[in-house]
């Protein structure tokens, strides 16, 4: 089975997951514990990770390098998820976004900013990974 259709995870002894190497994942999250935990999980699974604690820092990170995926918290100080997504759009930067939120309006918020989908907090680790994988693999396949 090709790694493109059956990704293996780091540490499981499988083949290298080429689609994981396509780009980094930018996590934009103001809660330091959630930020570091999500980053640890993704790094453990073999992804490259960039971190930002609000939308403004996220924009700076994207100026340096456009990631393969953004995991985006919505309620943040300085620059929230809505403004972050709007500025990206205004600048013509196209990058898939997964909204990460504890709000019950997750679906609506994801639709509002044109995100690929959402992850509801609190999430289980397999759910986070499968959501990330789905977006990145479709990008790789596409």
């Amino acid at each position, binding site marked *: 089975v090709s790694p493109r259709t059956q990704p293996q995870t780091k540490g*499981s002894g499988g083949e290298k997951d080429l689609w994981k190497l396509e780009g980094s994942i930018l996590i934009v999250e103001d809660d330091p514990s959630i930020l570091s935990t999500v980053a*640890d999980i993704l790094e*453990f699974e073999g992804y490259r990770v960039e971190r930002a604690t609000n939308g403004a820092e996220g924009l700076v990170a994207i100026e340096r390098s456009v990631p393969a995926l953004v995991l985006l918290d919505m309620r943040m100080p300085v620059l929230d998820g809505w403004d972050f997504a709007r500025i990206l759009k205004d600048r013509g930067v196209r990058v898939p976004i997964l909204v990460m939120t504890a709000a019950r309006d997750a679906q609506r918020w994801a639709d509002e900013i044109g995100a690929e989908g959402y992850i509801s907090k609190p999430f289980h680790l397999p759910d986070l990974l499968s959501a990330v994988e789905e977006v990145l693999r479709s990008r790789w396949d596409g």
Partner: protein
Amino acid sequence: VILESRALIDEAAQVQAREQVTRLKEDFLSAAAHDLKTPLTTLVAQTELLERRALRDPGAPADLAGLQKIKKEAHRLSRLVLELLDAARAEQGKLVGEREEVDLVAFARDVCARHQSERHRCLVEAAGPVIGLYDPNRIGQLVENLVENAVKYSPEGGTVLVKAWREDDWNRLSVIDCGIGIPKEDLPYVFERFHRGTNVDDRRFAGMGLGLYICRGIAEQHGGRIWVESAAEPSPRSRHPGLGPAGDGTTGSSRNLGSIGSKNDGGTDNGIGGDASNAGACIERGSTFHVALPIAARVAEDATADEGQRGGERPLEA
């Protein structure tokens, strides 16, 4: 016809009031759920990460940092649950426990040190110890809530100044910030349960709207008062606790935050973070929360009186 109209108006007012209560409760439940989910997110995800690591490499050493993160978030969750319980205790007038000698300045320094960051400076200004007979846990919570609030609503960063001093029969504490401030229409409701400012964007600031309500309970159940000034709302009545408004404990006042760094009662003790006189000024923005607590002797008298007053009586009214 007049009577019927009057009845209709009354009924409409009651419906409006019920709708307001329902909306506040819904907002509160939404905010409470959000706040509880935040530490839960780390707890669940971090635990599952530790499990996954252990399964893949059973011989690996324990991930101490990961365990500490779980512990920290469990405490955070615990604090939130306690806050909910405290709100209920505040309602019942049962917040304050055993009292002992407490130095407000020591509490202020401790709290300020914990809230220092690259983005926020927290300074303490005091001429010396400011001691009273208070419940130390609750006074710590009061100072913590006020400083945390000041930091939270100063998203662009800046200086938070905590002043403590004695004035006549009162121990005074003020927490001054240059943050987003409080609109005039919110001033009467700042200390109400579940209330959140109309300029507080829920998308940027999570919160249950209980912190200031609990602060008021702590101050009043110590025989004291708490009130707030907003930079944009002048009022001359805020200089002494006895001169504050009687009804809701809030006031508006012109507050020249150029006074950040000015000396109080003949001395300045910049316990944390450097020279308060260089803290800068913010005249047009921000808010100042004031607390006045009776000194020990007064508290001892009130403590006896309080026994018969539990259940909502406020011992200090202007």
